[in-house]
């Protein structure tokens, strides 16, 4: 017996719509709680440290090598029509508008999104979330809201740092390998940089921070079963956050492109 393909497609569409609905309801409930007291300041600070400070090494390494590669690769291209002087500008624009937020977002999704899903998922399957409720503490306020706030606030800061480190990577390659004059390189970097380049990158970062923490919390909070359920939640959190980052990235870019 075979199931008609239309039935399969229909079921998949329904499941997808149900998930989108559930995530939207979850996000709405969580955002509503972020603006309601009580604010768990310690939890917000702890999450900011986790997302920002402890992600610095991995994001910094990603940024510096990306900046270095950018400088080398754009040299290969631009040297063909003697436009080497554009390299500093290409490096800084690519980093601030695109690679800084996207790469930092993907790295943080792998690091923090997974950890959040695993932690909240374990709390779910060991009844710690029920225990919070019996202690008159709203798990959305105590667990989800602090993570969302920390994600939205911290990721732009992290991306700003990544931008600077990435530009430094490009600078190192430019000056020590491609024989740029250091002053000229820096001047070319700064003179052509526009406020919007950095600003659009930081807007992206805030959105990505929201998406990463939302996916981590949602998949953790809704995880079922034991260790296996938590494992699935962790995978789903990272995969869905990565896809959402890349999708949102296009639409934010388009929105700023039109301006």
């Amino acid at each position: 017996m075979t199931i008609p393909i239309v039935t399969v497609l229909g079921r998949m569409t329904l499941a997808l719509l149900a998930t989108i609905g559930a995530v939207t309801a979850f996000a709405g409930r969580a955002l509503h709680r972020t603006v309601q007291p009580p604010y768990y300041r310690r939890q917000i600070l702890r999450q900011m440290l986790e997302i920002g400070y402890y992600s610095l090494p991995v994001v910094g390494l990603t940024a510096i090598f990306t900046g270095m590669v950018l400088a080398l690769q754009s040299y290969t291209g631009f040297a063909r029509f003697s436009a080497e002087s554009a390299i500093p500008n290409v490096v800084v624009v690519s980093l601030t508008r695109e690679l800084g937020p996207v790469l930092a977002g993907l790295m943080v999704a792998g690091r923090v999104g997974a950890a959040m899903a695993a932690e909240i998922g374990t709390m779910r399957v060991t009844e710690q979330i029920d225990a919070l409720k019996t202690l008159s503490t709203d798990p959305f306020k105590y667990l989800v809201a602090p993570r969302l706030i920390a994600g939205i606030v911290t990721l732009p800061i992290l991306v700003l740092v990544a931008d600077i480190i990435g530009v430094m990577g490009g600078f190192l390659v430019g000056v020590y390998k491609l024989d740029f004059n250091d002053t000229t390189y820096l001047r070319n970097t700064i003179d052509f940089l526009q406020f919007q380049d950095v600003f659009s990158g930081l807007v992206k970062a805030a959105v990505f921070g929201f998406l990463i923490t939302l996916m981590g919390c949602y998949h953790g909070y809704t995880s079922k079963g034991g260790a296996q359920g938590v494992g699935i939640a962790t995978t789903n959190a990272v995969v869905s956050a990565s896809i959402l980052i890349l999708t949102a990235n296009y639409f934010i870019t388009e929105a700023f492109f039109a301006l």
Partner: protein
Amino acid sequence: MSPTPKISLRGVTKAFGDKQVLRGIDLDVAARESIVIIGGSGSGKSVLLKCILGLMEPDSGSIKIDGEETAKLSDSEREHVMRKFGMLFQGGALFDSLRVWQNVAFGPIQSDGMAPDKAKEVAIAKLGNVGLAPEIGELFPSELSGGMQKRVALARAIAREPEIIFFDEPTTGLDPIMADVINELIVKCVSDLGATAVSITHDMASARKIGHRVAMLYDGKLIWQGPVEDIDRSNNAHVDQFIHGRAEGPIRMQVKKL
């Protein structure tokens, strides 16, 4: 007229998909009474407890706490009802990122706004009530044995001096001696607080020790309830089979014949 029961259930039902777990539960628990709900694995004991606590919403029926209808309350409306409750979870459900004393002081600090210094004193006093030294308070839950985790969980459940305490399989996974220690602590804590207690268990030694009254849940219904002294002369074949732990009898476990 008799006083309002502390907890009153009428026609409570709950289903998961096609599976009808609770098929109309009627139950009254008087103030300061300790009731034990017994029943086999998968008989719906935990679901019943979670419905009373408000962690699950029943499909139909009425659940009154001190005469107030709570079955359909939203999470925010429920907070003042939750304030009356304390719950000892089966696995302890201690917050593993917090120290033992922070676990015990969690309710007083987060929900009642008690200053941390004062809450720590309260927590250490509660740990003393369950026979744990103050030094234990500085440890993390993962550093404790199962019996000690249960005691900490008990201390957390009584930290806010609740009016009603729920016990979910309090002795499961403990050796018989530690189980008896926990049973005695439960009896002591409940009587010290003057609290009402609702326990679910399949451990008959525990049920006899902590309960004033016993109710048996089978196939989604309470098929028998009465004082704990009467349990040996219930004249109910299901109860007899359960308390003597026989494989043969009216209760059929869903296992395939080998």
